[in-house]
């Protein structure tokens, strides 16, 4: 293998990895509050998702969910409860999210909470699902990245059993909701 081929391979690997990584803007937002103890933070690595491939599927439906989970590369959640800053944080999140990179999928207003679901595509595949939630006293940003199968998203939320992911079920309940655009 000559040096040119090695160089090309390295570039392709880096491109593939970065395609399924979080966007820089969201990373900056998470990092801004990384040391703030008043925020709840959850980070799940690709290793955790790969564990689902070890599991035996009991039904064809279960198999589809496990396959969808095994294609995920990471999950990050940043949340703050019982806060007066919830609306400010909600607005701040949108000032940092590059509108050109994300496409809004749907908005939901539920129990005085606003939720926006956005996706970032790469090569025709969904590389990141972003959910921003703002209520009277609660705020949350959830970023799920990897290769995302939207058809399985609510089942992924249930199967993973990570607090915060239950909000993804809203996507299947109100597929065409645009109540808060």
């Amino acid at each position: 293998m000559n040096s040119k081929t090695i160089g090309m391979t390295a570039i392709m690997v880096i491109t593939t990895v970065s395609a399924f990584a979080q966007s820089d803007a969201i990373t900056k937002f998470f990092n801004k509050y990384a040391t703030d103890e008043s925020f709840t933070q959850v980070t799940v690595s690709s290793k955790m998702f790969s564990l689902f491939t070890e599991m035996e599927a009991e039904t064809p439906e279960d198999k589809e969910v496990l396959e969808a989970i095994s294609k995920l590369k990471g999950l990050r959640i940043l949340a703050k409860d019982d806060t007066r800053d919830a609306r400010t944080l909600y607005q701040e999140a949108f000032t940092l999210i590059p509108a050109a990179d994300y496409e809004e999928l749907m908005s939901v207003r539920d129990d005085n909470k606003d939720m926006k679901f956005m996706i970032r595509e790469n090569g025709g595949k969904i590389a990141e699902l972003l959910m921003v939630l703002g209520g009277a006293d609660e705020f949350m940003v959830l970023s799920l990245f990897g290769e995302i199968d939207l058809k399985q998203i609510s089942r992924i939320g249930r199967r993973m059993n990570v607090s915060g992911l239950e909000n993804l079920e809203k996507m299947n309940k109100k597929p065409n909701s645009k109540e808060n655009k």
Partner: protein
Amino acid sequence: MNATEKSREILRPMLRALLVMLMSAAVIAASAQSRTTEKLEDQFEDSRAFFFYNNTLRMINQADDPEFDEIIRDIEKMKLLIIRKNAEGFDLKNIARDYKSEDFEEIMTSRHKGRNFDIFLREEGGKTRAMLALVNDEDNLFVLDILGSIDPGKVAKFFSVMDEESDISSRIRNFVTNDREEPDDDDGPGPEKGNHD
């Protein structure tokens, strides 16, 4: 029989004995819990250690929560170590580094209400062999060293059950906080204390 064959004849039983010893050592190493946990227990003499075997965990589940039984199904044993963070020589970064050097890989981190959770796993032959949770708050580091595995979809649930207010966690808390007192009869059987490796 020439000299080479003779020496082979002499060495064969010795090699066989050595092989048996190596295999036994490998089995012991594979079945024991983490060396780092043992080292921590020795280093921090004031730390408190609790041992739970699969049947002990089942007995703690007095409410017969079927989900909890399912979660702990593949746990062989679990050691809980509580270390005061102001103990001499305590260094959280070094502790995490020591676990990583034992092939523990981080799968999840979380911070909630002043508590930091780091969850690791160790694989052997592509299968999960051990799991570890380092939970630290303002005063203590809780080391939960698990031999066996937990369904990945229930990892978060398991640690939240162990941490948050639930029948099971309150029973464990009672044992942990009143470890010098005898538990009430109503509290059911407790974890074993001391070295059970």
